[in-house]
């Protein structure tokens, strides 16, 4: 288990992210509507440039076999690159439904709470209920 002291960098990094989410208007319900109506480049620019920067930086890390500050090896493989698994397209579409309605994905839900929009605690609770329901029904849902 990580010591408490080891968590501070993550709090700081999170704070940075919370500021960027807010000032970049990523957490705006209006911006998400604009995106799903294809009426502005703003959100596409944000997601696209974030992916480009992340891809380039990850490539550099792999290319030079960089290690963590603590000297560990860095593992970059995130998900198994399987085929058209049910879980990705069904789960993804259901997530998209929620994203379109609520106008916020998980990170922005937390950031909106930080913005003082306290009704987002209800959205968070609903999301936790959704995650719980997934856990409950998971053995009976198609995944592969």
């Amino acid at each position, binding site marked *: 288990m990580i010591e408490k002291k080891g968590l501070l960098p993550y709090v700081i990094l999170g704070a940075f992210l919370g500021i960027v989410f807010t000032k970049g208007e990523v957490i*705006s319900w209006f911006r998400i509507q604009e995106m*799903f109506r294809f009426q502005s480049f703003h959100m596409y620019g944000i997601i696209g440039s*974030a992916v480009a920067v992340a891809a380039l930086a990850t490539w550099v890390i792999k290319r030079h076999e960089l290690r963590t500050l*603590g000297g560990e090896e860095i593992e970059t493989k995130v998900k198994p690159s399987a085929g058209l698994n049910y879980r990705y397209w069904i789960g993804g*579409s259901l997530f998209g439904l929620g994203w379109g309605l609520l106008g916020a994905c998980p990170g922005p839900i937390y950031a909106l709470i930080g913005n003082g929009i306290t*009704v987002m605690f209800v959205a968070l609770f609903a999301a936790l209920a959704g*995650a719980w329901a997934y856990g409950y029904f998971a053995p009976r849902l198609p995944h592969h």
Partner: protein
Amino acid sequence: MIETLSQPWPWWVAGPLIGLIVPVLLLIGSKQFGLSTSFRQICAATAPGQIEYFRYDWKRGMWRLALILGIIGGAAIGATWLASPDPVIGISEATNSDLVALGITDFRGMVPSEFISWSGLLTLPGFVMVVVGGFFVGFGARYADGCTSGHAISGLSTFQFSSLIAVLGFFAGGLVATHLLLPLVFRAG
């Protein structure tokens, strides 16, 4: 300085800064950016029941909960010290008129406060947006094994096919919500 930072940040500032989170997390401790796993962790910590999905060592992901604590604090800084002088976000004219036609009149702030607010929960659109929307965000993200951060940013940046499928799903669902469900709910409510 503060004055400049208080203006809304353009996409070409905000996007690359968000992208940098991925390598920084890798370099700090070989951690992969993904926020919806926090839902699984919180369920595991509070109400695991006999559910196998929640019976795991959620404390190993404590770094993610620390990151989220930071997000909440950072967002509070963004909303106070760095608050934009204009409370109305500069969305396009086309979106503005579409949303007026839908039934939204108050464009101040991050969310339409007639609906996404405590009193708004009592309206049909508000309830559907916050409660139904929130539920599907949680259910869908865990079913798909990732959300916008885990699939769209982490996954796409490492060229994972499964993340591409998930992101196409995100958009399919979002389009249905925007162009079919919201108009239905607003007409009914």
